[in-house]
């Protein structure tokens, strides 16, 4: 359960800058690279660094571009010559995996100042060929895709089984959508800001059972970036450093039919490893950013991340535990369901929100006294899981 992880990088690195494109959501006429540059410039400005100090770029595949090496294309476009570059592709888990990798390579002495960056235009920038390719290539060509199984369907089957095994209901799922929409309504720049009710979610159009339209993430354009550096350097940066205290990942299968048990995910292992490295327990966490491609995903994750017992995620959320005053305020920006979803880097906005909460910058969204945060990303029908524990100086 905790194999492969020693507490080697706890507090050794920190996020000193975050940035988003000027607009997130529907952003026609701005290329993915231009969106990425807007985000990188904003993150760099926060860090107080010069562009020339960035010696590593970590990115992921931008689905609306044809680049095989987005991090390399980005570096050319931004005008830097880094000495480390990598594109991580573990679907939705990429967000946590890239932050973890940034911490690891800095700790290894392989880079000093890492830019983690993505820009993508899933909403307005996909040619029909790109959209089709991303749909038909999202699942295995031999054993899944011939049966017309979109990736949504793999997540739906796990949620459906969760209903069967634990009595979870569509109303429980709907609470996730309604809670996060209420959060998004307070977040400047969120894509979906009109109030919704449980009834609205239940009555929205069915997509793939048990999921209806309002159980599903939005699709968006946008860019996101982070500057990660050593704890020593972070002390000289203008923003309050947010330290990377723990990192964990787990990859349990490729095909959904080889997922060991479809109602329990690799998030159990990734989060336990991250908690162990950080020296914390789930009840210590003040605020969370939890990947939410679908409502049921959050129900399963509050269980797997240890915030409640297995099978109790539905009632836990319906009781108000993922919002203000509850056990673990989560996705206070609105998440993929209501803030924005730009593809592999979609959950970068969750990490941004956790960083802002820990800095105390969230205004009327602020979780009072937040010092310790959790960021959990996942993807590919729960094949990939990545967790990062973040904290303020007080948690070191």
């Amino acid at each position, binding site marked *: 359960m905790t194999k492969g992880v020693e507490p080697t990088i706890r507090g050794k690195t920190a996020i000193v800058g975050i940035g988003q494109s000027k607009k997130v959501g529907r952003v026609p006429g701005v290329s993915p690279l231009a969106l990425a540059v807007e985000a990188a410039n904003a993150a760099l400005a926060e860090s107080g660094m010069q562009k020339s100090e960035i010696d590593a770029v970590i990115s992921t595949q931008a689905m609306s571009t044809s680049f095989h090496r987005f991090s390399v294309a980005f570096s050319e476009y931004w005008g830097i010559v880094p000495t480390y570059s990598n594109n991580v592709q573990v679907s939705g888990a990429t967000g946590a995996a890239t932050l973890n990798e940034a911490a690891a390579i800095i700790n290894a002495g392989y880079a000093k100042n890492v830019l983690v960056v993505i820009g993508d235009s899933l909403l307005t920038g996909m040619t029909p060929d790109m959209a089709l390719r991303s749909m038909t290539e999202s699942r295995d060509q031999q054993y899944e895709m011939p049966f017309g199984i979109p990736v949504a369907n793999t997540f739906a089957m796990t949620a459906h089984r969760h209903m069967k095994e634990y009595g979870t209901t569509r109303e429980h799922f709907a609470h996730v959508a309604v809670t996060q929409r209420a959060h998004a309504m307070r977040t400047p720049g969120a894509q979906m800001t009109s109030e919704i009710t449980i009834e609205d979610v239940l009555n929205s159009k069915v997509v793939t059972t048990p999921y209806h339209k309002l159980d599903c993430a939005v699709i968006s354009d946008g860019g996101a970036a982070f500057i990660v550096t050593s704890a020593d350097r972070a002390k000289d940066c203008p923003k309050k450093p947010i330290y990377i205290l723990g990192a964990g990942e787990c990859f349990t299968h490729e095909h*959904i039919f080889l997922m060991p048990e479809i109602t329990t995910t690799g998030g159990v292992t990734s989060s336990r490893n991250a908690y162990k490295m950080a020296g914390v327990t789930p009840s210590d966490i003040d605020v969370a950013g939890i990947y939410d491609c679908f409502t049921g995903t959050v129900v399963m994750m509050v269980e797997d991340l240890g915030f409640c017992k297995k099978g109790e995620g539905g009632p836990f959320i319906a009781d108000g535990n993922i919002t203000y005053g509850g056990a673990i305020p989560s996705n206070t920006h609105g998440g993929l369901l209501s803030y924005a979803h730009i593809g592999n880097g979609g959950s970068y906005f969750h990490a941004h929100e956790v960083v802002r909460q820990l800095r105390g910058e969230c205004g009327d969204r602020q979780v009072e006294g937040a010092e310790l945060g959790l960021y959990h990303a996942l993807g590919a029908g729960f094949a990939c899981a990545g967790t990062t524990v973040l904290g303020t100086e007080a948690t070191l």
Partner: protein
Amino acid sequence: MSNSAIDPFAKPLPSPDPDSLPLWEGFRQGKLFLQHCKDCGGIQYYHQASCRNCQSENLEEREASGRGKIHSFSVVHRAPGPAFKNDTPYAVVLVELEEGPRMISSMIDTNPDDLDFELDVAFTTEKINEEISLPRFRLA
């Protein structure tokens, strides 16, 4: 082999690889083969060159009973692309075979409203073209 990437109305078809040729040949003959490991006793779907449990290459191909149960399912109402649009609503099923392994497939001759967890299902195949028959299930 499949030209689905350029023709949005063509369904994605598998391109059998060196590992999977016998499995797809089995489907063409209406049979579902599983690999049984002679060293550790593991049974696996889909075909590989080695056992997923012990890496032995000493694998024996045996025909499955074709009996299974629905472990989970999801009825697709919004198709993943134009190729499946005329099929909606259709059920994608995660079948647990009597021998243990699970597989993804879809139902034929079944009203999606009649599906439920743990229902008994039976393996069959559907001929798509001369090379490819797809594994399907129907209610047992």
